[in-house]
């Protein structure tokens, strides 16, 4: 209990006094995970739209794949990305292993199935005649699709946040493809693991607290957005 109490105090001190290393790690964490989430949204939303609205053979199978992918272990993704980027690997020539870019790639791979599965579910919840009605009012295909995405904006936001939540808190892939290099690829989760293994519990707790604050901030933003758009204007 002492360890926890002292750890919490020390963590608060670290955070409040603006420990440079902590903030640097926090910055990189946000940069990597937000970029990965943005990529996952850009790739995942069109795929989800095709899966939710399209009529083609294998659609159900692909939806099942996306749903399965939601539980993809980050370590497995990390392993595959590592193999791909390994010096002798297919993409080894790019020299990306142990860089933030590699971490973005791995985290995007983790987030894509989450975004696809949740977005597809969100789009299927909109009235099945929605697109037809938008077209019936004179919308082009693109405008009608835009209106559909706008209609599903809250669950879409939730899908993006779920993707972000998954990647910001994962440690396996970040560790494997990033290598946890101080000042280069060290993020909050890998830093917390390292600090814990060294017995620097206060530091580890500080990193954990920052992660919790980020999670809370994200959820607060979503909740406020939901409240704003559901309340009558």
């Amino acid at each position, binding site marked *: 209990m002492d360890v926890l109490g002292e750890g919490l105090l020390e963590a608060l001190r670290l955070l409040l006094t603006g420990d440079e290393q902590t903030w640097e790690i926090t910055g990189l964490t946000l940069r990597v995970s937000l970029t990965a989430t943005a990529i996952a949204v850009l790739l995942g939303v069109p795929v989800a739209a095709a899966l939710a609205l399209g009529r083609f053979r294998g659609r159900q199978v692909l939806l099942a794949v996306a749903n399965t992918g939601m539980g993809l272990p980050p370590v497995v993704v990390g392993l595959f990305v590592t193999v791909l980027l390994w010096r002798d690997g297919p993409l080894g020539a790019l020299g990306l292993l142990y860089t933030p870019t590699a971490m973005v790639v791995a985290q995007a791979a983790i987030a894509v199935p989450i975004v696809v599965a949740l977005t597809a579910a969100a789009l299927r919840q909109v009235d099945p005649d929605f697109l037809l009605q938008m077209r019936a*009012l004179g919308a082009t295909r693109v405008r009608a699709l835009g209106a559909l995405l706008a209609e599903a904006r809250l669950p879409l936001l939730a899908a993006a946040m779920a993707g972000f939540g998954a990647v910001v808190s994962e440690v396996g892939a970040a560790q494997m493809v990033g290598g946890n290099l101080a000042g280069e690829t060290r993020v909050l989760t890998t830093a917390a693991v390292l600090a814990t293994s060294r017995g620097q519990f206060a530091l580890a707790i500080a990193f954990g607290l920052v992660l919790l604050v980020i999670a809370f901030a994200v959820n607060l933003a979503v909740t406020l957005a939901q409240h704003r758009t559901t309340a009558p204007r």
Partner: protein
Amino acid sequence: MSIGCRDLRVSAGGREVVAVSRLDVPAGETLAVLGPNGSGKSTLLRALAHLGGAARSGSVLLDGRTATTTELRRAVAAVLQRPVLQRATVLDNAAAGLRLRGVRRGEARHRARPWLDALGVAQLAGRDARTLSGGEAQRVAIARALAVGPRVLLLDEPFTGLDATTRTDLLADLRAALDRQRAAVLLVTHDREEARALADRTALLVNGEIRQLGPTAEVLDAPADQECATLLGFTTQLPPALTGREVLLVARPERCRPLAGSAPPPPDAVVVEGVLRRVVPLGGAFRLDLDTPAGSLTAVTTAVLTEGPGDAVRVAVAAADLRACR
């Protein structure tokens, strides 16, 4: 602008569901397409707007010229059976059609507002559209389509699911709103009264084909064949075997009067005999189901019958109330 079609055929699931060789709605006219459930009314409406994924052939005409999907998209606004509104205020929903056509938000709202007024929902402008009742939502959906200023307006049973009062009010408001613009209007419905209230001409659609087309009052009063007769409420059908005439005679059940005892029938009436199967109270009136040698027959009367099930009953229909069918 007029809309029409030539040899329009739509298939679904390997079956032809609509086959209309010719249909024209001139600008400023309202045409009702009256048909029973499953007759292909909605399919025809969607095909006319090139909406939906059903396989179609033939051509849709705008001003007599074969129209492309893009031309139809610009000219036509359609209101679907169930109002599909967006997660937004009533005013923004009314403006949505214009927004989807690239009009800026401010101007779209400005142009949509009078239509909310015309449809009697201006006071709801600031409300969340998801809190509306069915009737209110349908009014907003119609205002949204009219706000676009369509040259062709397609209405797919917009009054379905509304209570009688709401429906009557909305019919009156819609009639007034339609009078304000010179669109060609096609109304799909299964309700004769809606056709009567809104349409200059009426087409009867049965099994995907137009069986009858003409001025509404004429069409509603003169069914061409047995299926049209059923559709138009001429459900008392007297086959030649029963009347000795050469053609099928049909009448509205409320025009068929049971004859009391041995009372003589009116001079020009057709009289049929049958056995009373059951009496169904309709609140102020009774529906009589009779078995005749040529099948069952229905009559509606306000008189209290002394006969009961199993008794022989004579039913008279005045010649003026009978229509001859093919």
